[in-house]
């Protein structure tokens, strides 16, 4: 489905500013489907999520139609931007929730070592992770880097490309663009973690 013509849009916006009760219906009719298609095509999100973001954008416009300035942008661009922002906000909070739930400290506590391992080893590993985690948190690193470092700490050996991309907030990029970015960031953050580890535990020796 294509987006409405410029003339149609101008007319719709004019009606939105007036008393026409069915103007909101016509805006929905003209924009909902193209917005959903655009979100699914650009962000590769599910149709269900795209419906929610598109509806959010349209309701935001209905509440304050005079918030749109026709001299600054087109209504299509305006609505698309709101919908995209909603999508990114939802995505960010979902990633944060997942990472919080997957906090390495929780993992260590939930999956304690086998009973034949010495308790001291477990306590020491937990403490080391705690120290490293504190150091990362207080280091003033951007939230996405902290999230990515957590993914590395959680992974045993091979880091999942998908999880790293999510943590770095670059899942929306095409695979060809995303893969080299994930690789370079993973390498860089691994080096940073190694140096932080050395910094903390060498100082104590």
């Amino acid at each position, binding site marked *: 489905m294509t987006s409405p013509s410029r003339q149609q849009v101008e007319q719709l916006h004019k009606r939105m500013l007036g*008393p026409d*009760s069915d103007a*909101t*219906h016509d805006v929905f009719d003209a924009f909902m*489907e193209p917005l959903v298609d655009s979100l699914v095509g650009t962000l590769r999100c599910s149709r269900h999520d795209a419906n929610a973001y598109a*509806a959010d954008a349209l309701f935001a416009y209905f*509440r304050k139609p005079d918030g749109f300035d026709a001299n600054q942008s087109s209504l299509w661009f305006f609505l698309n931007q709101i919908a995209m922002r909603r999508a990114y906000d939802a995505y960010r909070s979902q990633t944060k929730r997942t990472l919080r739930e997957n906090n390495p400290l929780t993992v260590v506590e939930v999956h304690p070592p086998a009973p034949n391992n010495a308790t001291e080893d477990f306590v020491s590993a937990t403490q080391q992770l705690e120290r490293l985690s504190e150091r990362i948190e207080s280091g003033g690193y951007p939230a996405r880097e902290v999230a990515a470092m957590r993914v590395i700490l959680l992974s045993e050996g091979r880091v999942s490309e998908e999880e790293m991309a999510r943590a770095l907030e670059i899942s929306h990029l095409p695979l060809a663009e995303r893969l080299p970015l994930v690789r370079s960031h993973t390498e860089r953050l691994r080096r940073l973690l190694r140096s932080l580890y050395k910094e903390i535990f060498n100082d104590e020796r």
Partner: protein
Amino acid sequence: MMSVELLDYAAKRSATEPGLLGQVFAIYQSLEDCTRDALAEELGCDEQTLNRLSLCRRPSGDAFAEQVKLLCGRFGLEPFALANVLRQVEIMGSDSPTPRATATLQLAALDKRKKDEPAS
């Protein structure tokens, strides 16, 4: 034109959107304890038309009568039925179904149901 699936979704969302008829209908349904089918029947339309109507702005102010007429003309409704629904919700004085307002409406609906039940 929107697909039936999208229209259905948008109409559901409109139930919590102040200023849209979807919210007025949600309040009315709660007040009268009636189903969506029953409301559609009362307005003299099918469910899909009710969904389209839910996405329209609630007529108010000086343009009330004119806007009700416009909506009824466009969607083929009986003007008296739509005006009646709008007035009933207005009389209850609840523009937004806040938890308190919703509770009041539910209590009113419960009272009405009790009154309607035959005495045993």
